[in-house]
């Protein structure tokens, strides 16, 4: 008989469940449930006290009903009562109910927390585990507040049972994920690291998970874990599979622990210590060698566990990106997997190779697998595998293979699943642009894209091709000829009509010499598509027609007839009607000179970033690429305002400007893009951004922000409310000139027009002014990129400008009573951020005062009952809002520690200010 015979069947529950299963219809089920709910309610309300068993049974029924998808609005109290039962099963059901149906009802939370507290102190490991599980399952802030300081104690106490240690470690991990600010760091962290040496592998596994998470935030505190992790890993890797007893999984030694250790090591750079480093390399080699050994079992579990470790080892090799031999071995191994009969392995090999492709050591090795990947694109049955193949082709693409890869992607596009078409279109468009050597190829590629997958070509893509054609006169004639030919097709996609209309309107004259594409032929061709198009496209075509009138006076009469027709002049759509009327009028009254001026060829678009890239990033979601949101939110000046610098037609509606004014669209996302076209030597991302002196500027505004042998950069800045002005002084320390000097500040800053001279004489100094506006609260400071030629070499320097949130403080004086009233109003848990930290500098009252004043707040005397403490208040000004802020700093001379508390109405502001200020003492 199965083990359940020892269990605690609840007959009533089983009957109820089978009743529900016997219900023939949804209505019958709802009816049965309502009957049960009424029954339970009456039992709970009844005069007779329920015994533990019945209470458990009813709570369990409620849980079942809830899990079926019905709302439950009572029974919480009974569940909480079960928590204090001393019968295990009753307690267990109580905890399960609480975990599944958390209720933010504050009274209840207090009761729950009390019950948990009792169990945590019960010294009964089973009860302690239940309580820890409940905290981890709920993971709410209230619970974190109540227990975050207690759990580390349990974790490192000498007499704690192993199973409780495991629970405590993972519980702490969960709390650290939800409320990292509430988990206090302290001396326990050092002892947690030593759990890596524990005899019990379960404890080691749990501790490794915890340390990995904590180390990502405070790598320095957990540095010592690296050597311990390597040692542990080495012992596992070299152990015979039976050594680890039950931690061997299908003949693989402790796969979970191995993977976790390898993950932990990915939080750090390669070890500097040579011995340690070679020991780690040995481990990784052993893992790679094992992949070549014959399997010890035919079971899929064996190969999965073994390969899981292998893939994690490869991830570490890629992360370190420093051992060329290992990288190439990893690449070869993945190459084998590319042709494995297990679909899962092919999928993972493609995925893993994607990251490998970006390493300079292995990029070439990855490229050797191109044919296999292309083949996968054609033959894989599973769409998710094909998608990975597309990703990999995209990642391995460079100038040498761009034409082939783009061609393959284009031909795959014809049969690709609808779900991934848009992404492929974007990728093709980006690659074609990035690696275009000759732009005729680029134009052909994009037109092909429109032909094959017109519906998936977003506005960004066709805007971009127009921008490029307008900016490059060597391709304009070809573009005109090609669109003209493409438009000959009887059915062509509307996006092609748009591109065709725009390009012929601008450059139709370049092909008008050929009688087969004479002006009239061009016009008739375009106009034959007119009636099949949507309103925005028709509006664009009308604009193309008026451009034709300017380009080709000989078709003026024909076009005027078209504009004059009722279907245009009396069109029901106000936009079309207005264009027809205005263009007709313009063509009648304006002299040829005026017409030529008004309808002149579009000026080149400012070389702006490709908005296609942004679109791809957006599609990929936040996980795939670094989060760009912050940089967009940061000190932002012009970008958001430039939305509508309008053209000639004041009266027209918005859609009109959009159609003509191509560059107005991408502006909202523009600041976060990389200009794939720029030929300038190195993209800023490649240079290390200097931020060494950055922290010195938190509490002051003037000083030297950067200095090397050649150049010194000094700053003077002043701030008022949400505006600031920064004077940047570039000092040439050498005796020779700096040539082609340029500095580009981030797009978020308004830069004063009289910017930098292209030359700085030896020993001279040059000044530049930056205007700054804080639009909303932000974290990341802008980066100033400087480029100049010294001697023969081009110098690139990037400096993080000390523009921090606290610069936009206005100090606020207030009385003690006001202060405490506001302090109380800002009492919600997310509004407060607190940090306890060790003093880095001598604890001097006057210095501290100066720093707090320099931070930007008013220092309030006589507010805190303890005169040793500091209390401050101020308001952060941003363009959109103002954020009030209160702070309190409590020095503890004996312990050489501070406690800093910040309360503001915004949690992001509290958090950022706390980080900035706590670093200063």
């Amino acid at each position, binding site marked *: 008989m199965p083990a*359940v015979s020892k269990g605690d069947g609840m007959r009533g529950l089983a009957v109820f469940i089978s009743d529900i299963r016997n219900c023939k219809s949804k209505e019958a089920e709802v009816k049965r449930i309502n009957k049960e709910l009424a029954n339970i309610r009456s039992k709970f309300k009844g005069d007779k006290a329920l015994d533990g068993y019945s209470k458990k049974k009813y709570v369990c029924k409620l849980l079942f009903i809830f899990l079926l998808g019905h709302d439950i609005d009572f029974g919480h109290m009974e569940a909480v009562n079960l928590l204090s039962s001393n019968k295990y099963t009753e307690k267990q059901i109580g905890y399960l109910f609480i975990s599944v149906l958390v209720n933010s009802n504050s009274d209840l939370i207090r009761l729950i927390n009390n019950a948990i507290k009792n169990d945590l102190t019960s010294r009964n490991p089973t009860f302690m585990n239940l309580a820890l599980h409940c905290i981890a399952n709920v993971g709410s802030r209230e619970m974190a507040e109540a227990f975050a300081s207690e759990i580390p104690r349990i974790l490192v106490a000498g007499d704690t049972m192993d199973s409780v240690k495991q629970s405590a470690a993972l519980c702490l991990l969960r709390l650290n994920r939800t409320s990292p600010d509430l988990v206090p760091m302290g001396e326990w962290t050092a002892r947690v690291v030593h759990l890596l040496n524990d005899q019990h592998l379960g404890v080691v596994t*749990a501790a490794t998970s915890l340390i990995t998470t904590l180390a990502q935030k405070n790598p320095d505190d957990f540095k010592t874990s690296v050597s311990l992790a390597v040692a542990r890993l080495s012992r596992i890797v070299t152990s015979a599979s039976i050594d680890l007893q039950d931690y061997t999984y299908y003949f693989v030694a402790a796969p979970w622990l191995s993977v976790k250790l390898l993950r932990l090591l990915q939080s750090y750079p390669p070890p500097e210590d040579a011995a340690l480093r070679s020991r780690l390399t040995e481990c990784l080699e052993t893992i790679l060698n094992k992949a070549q050994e014959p399997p010890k079992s035919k079971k899929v579990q064996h190969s999965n566990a073994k390969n899981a470790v292998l893939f994690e080892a490869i991830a570490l090799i890629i992360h370190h990106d420093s051992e060329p031999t290992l990288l190439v071995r990893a690449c070869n191994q993945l190459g084998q997997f590319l042709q494995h009969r297990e679909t899962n392995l092919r999928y993972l090999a493609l995925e893993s190779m994607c990251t490998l492709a970006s390493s300079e050591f292995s990029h070439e090795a990855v490229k050797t697998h191109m044919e296999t990947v292309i083949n996968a694109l054609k033959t894989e049955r599973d769409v998710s595998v094909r998608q990975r193949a597309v990703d990999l082709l995209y990642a391995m693409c460079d100038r040498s293979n761009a034409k082939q890869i783009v061609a393959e992607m284009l031909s795959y596009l014809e049969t690709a699943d609808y779900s991934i078409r848009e992404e492929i279109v974007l990728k093709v468009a980006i690659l074609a642009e990035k690696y275009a050597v000759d732009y005729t190829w680029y134009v052909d590629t994009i037109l092909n894209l429109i032909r094959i997958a017109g519906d998936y070509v977003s506005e960004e893509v066709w805007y971009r091709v127009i921008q490029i054609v307008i900016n490059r006169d060597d391709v304009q004639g070809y573009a005109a000829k090609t669109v003209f030919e493409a438009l000959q097709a009887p059915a062509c996609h509307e996006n092609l009509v748009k591109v065709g209309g725009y390009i012929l309107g601008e450059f139709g004259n370049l092909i008008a010499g050929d009688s087969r594409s004479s002006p009239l032929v061009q016009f008739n061709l375009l106009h034959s598509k007119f009636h099949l198009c949507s309103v925005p496209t028709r509006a664009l075509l009308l604009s193309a027609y008026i451009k034709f009138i300017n380009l080709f006076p000989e078709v003026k009469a024909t076009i005027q007839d078209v504009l004059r027709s009722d279907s245009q002049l009396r069109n029901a759509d106000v936009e079309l009607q207005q264009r027809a009327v205005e263009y007709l009028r313009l063509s009648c009254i304006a002299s040829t000179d005026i017409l030529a001026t008004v309808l002149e060829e579009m000026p080149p678009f400012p070389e702006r970033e490709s908005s296609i890239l942004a679109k791809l990033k957006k599609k990929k979601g936040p996980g795939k690429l670094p989060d760009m949101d912050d940089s967009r939110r940061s000190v932002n000046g012009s970008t958001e305002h430039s939305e509508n610098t309008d053209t000639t037609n004041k009266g027209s509606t918005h859609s009109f400007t959009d159609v003509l004014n191509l560059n107005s669209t991408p502006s909202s996302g523009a600041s976060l893009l990389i200009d794939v076209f720029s030929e300038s030597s190195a993209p800023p991302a490649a240079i290390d951004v200097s931020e060494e002196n950055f922290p010195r500027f938190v509490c002051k505004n003037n000083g030297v922000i950067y200095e090397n042998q050649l150049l010194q950069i000094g700053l003077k800045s002043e701030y008022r409310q949400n505006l600031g002005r920064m004077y940047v002084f570039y000092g040439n320390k050498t005796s020779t000139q700096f040539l082609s000097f340029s500095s580009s500040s981030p797009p978020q800053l308004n830069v004063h027009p009289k910017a930098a001279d292209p030359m700085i004489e030896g020993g001279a100094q040059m000044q530049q002014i930056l205007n700054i506006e804080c639009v909303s609260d932000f974290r990341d400071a802008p980066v100033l990129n400087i480029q100049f030629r010294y001697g023969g070499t081009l110098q690139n320097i990037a400096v993080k400008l000390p523009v921090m949130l606290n610069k936009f403080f206005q100090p606020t004086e207030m009385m003690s009573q006001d202060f405490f009233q506001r302090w109380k109003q800002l009492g919600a848990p997310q509004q407060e951020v607190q940090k306890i930290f060790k003093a880095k500098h001598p604890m001097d009252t006057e210095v501290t005062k100066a720093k707090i004043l320099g931070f930007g707040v008013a220092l309030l005397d006589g507010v805190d009952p303890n005169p040793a403490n500091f209390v401050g208040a101020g308001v952060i000004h941003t363009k959109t809002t103002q954020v009030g802020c209160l702070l309190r700093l409590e020095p503890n001379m004996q312990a050489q520690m501070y406690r800093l508390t910040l309360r503001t109405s915004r949690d992001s502001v509290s958090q950022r200010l706390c980080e900035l200020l706590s670093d200063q003492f």
Partner: protein
Amino acid sequence: MRFLLLFSRQGKLRLQKWFTSMSDREKKKIIRDMTTMVLARQARSCNFLQWKDLKIIYKRYASLYFCLAVESQENELLALEIIHRYVELLDKYFGNVCELDIIFNFEKAYFILDEFLMGGEIQETSKQIVNRSIEASDMLQEAVTAYLNIKFQKCT
């Protein structure tokens, strides 16, 4: 790990475990997305899917689909083995587990999962130790068995 779902071939949810807090609306949407996505997969496809920024790892055991969502840096193959280990534990406890066991003993299925995973991380990878602690907690229980009779009625 973010969540674990068990559902039948008909898309009936049998177990849901969430490792991060989420609103009921989000949960319902995820359940809907997962069941439609996973059930639409052809046999012998790979066991991994990309869904938003998460990796979805699923596997079918008899009539039940086990579907696990993990963060993008997690190891897919090992996630697959987490599912397998859970199935082994259920098997050991129920003796050749079937969907009915999980329906009628849903609370047990949750308890076993809790012994094995916690806060979205694996807590104990040793099968012996997990089994021992599950058995130990059963010893703490008062023995009454009505469920078995019902199970037999259902099966015959």
